[in-house]
């Protein structure tokens, strides 16, 4: 599953990162999986949220088959 990255993560890692997610997964699994490959961004990932299908994800479990889009949302700074 390609996960979209933004802001400093997109600049440092790339616009997407390819992850192997289980058929059922939690938002935290997405962050943990990226952390394994990019431990240097653990701090930023800890501050980031996960969006699933363009909605902020809570702690609920997702079925991979229902998911069309996943993104990591670093602390926002618009305005």
């Amino acid at each position, binding site marked *: 599953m390609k996960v979209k990255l*933004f*802001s*400093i993560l997109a*600049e440092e890692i790339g616009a997407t990162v390819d992850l192997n997610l289980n058929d059922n997964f939690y938002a935290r699994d997405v962050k943990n999986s990226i952390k394994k490959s990019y431990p240097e961004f653990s701090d930023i990932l800890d501050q980031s949220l996960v969006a699933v299908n*363009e909605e902020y994800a809570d702690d609920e479990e997702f079925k991979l088959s229902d998911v069309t889009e996943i*993104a990591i949302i670093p*602390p*926002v*700074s618009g*305005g």
Partner: protein
Amino acid sequence: MSLIKITDQPINTDELTKSLIHPEFGGIDIFIGNIRKFTDEIETEKIEYTTYKQMAEKEMQKLADQVLAKGMDVVMVHRVGELNLSDVAVFIGVAAPHRAEAFENCQFLIDQLKRTVPIWKKEYDRDKIRWGGLGE
């Protein structure tokens, strides 16, 4: 007549302001955020805004819907791309029957936009580059 969008074009404050003036409403509050030169001692040269556009517009619409549901009119426009000093980054306007609601809801919208809408700034300061939202 509400307008909610992310754009990479300059924000036309005049057109947006005039779109909020209707005889049904008597009070309009507008917030305009522009690129500021100094933040304390830090001198900014330009800011590059990026966004997760589809989600950002959805989140802006959710905020606007809360105000529209109270019978007011709303405009929320955020610009992305490379902005220079004085350039307008964000325009938020609320037209309401009475002024107190216009102020309250306009401030609510900009406060929430800054908390929840996926837009990021990369600030090119004289001394170094700073990413908005991240601690030093």
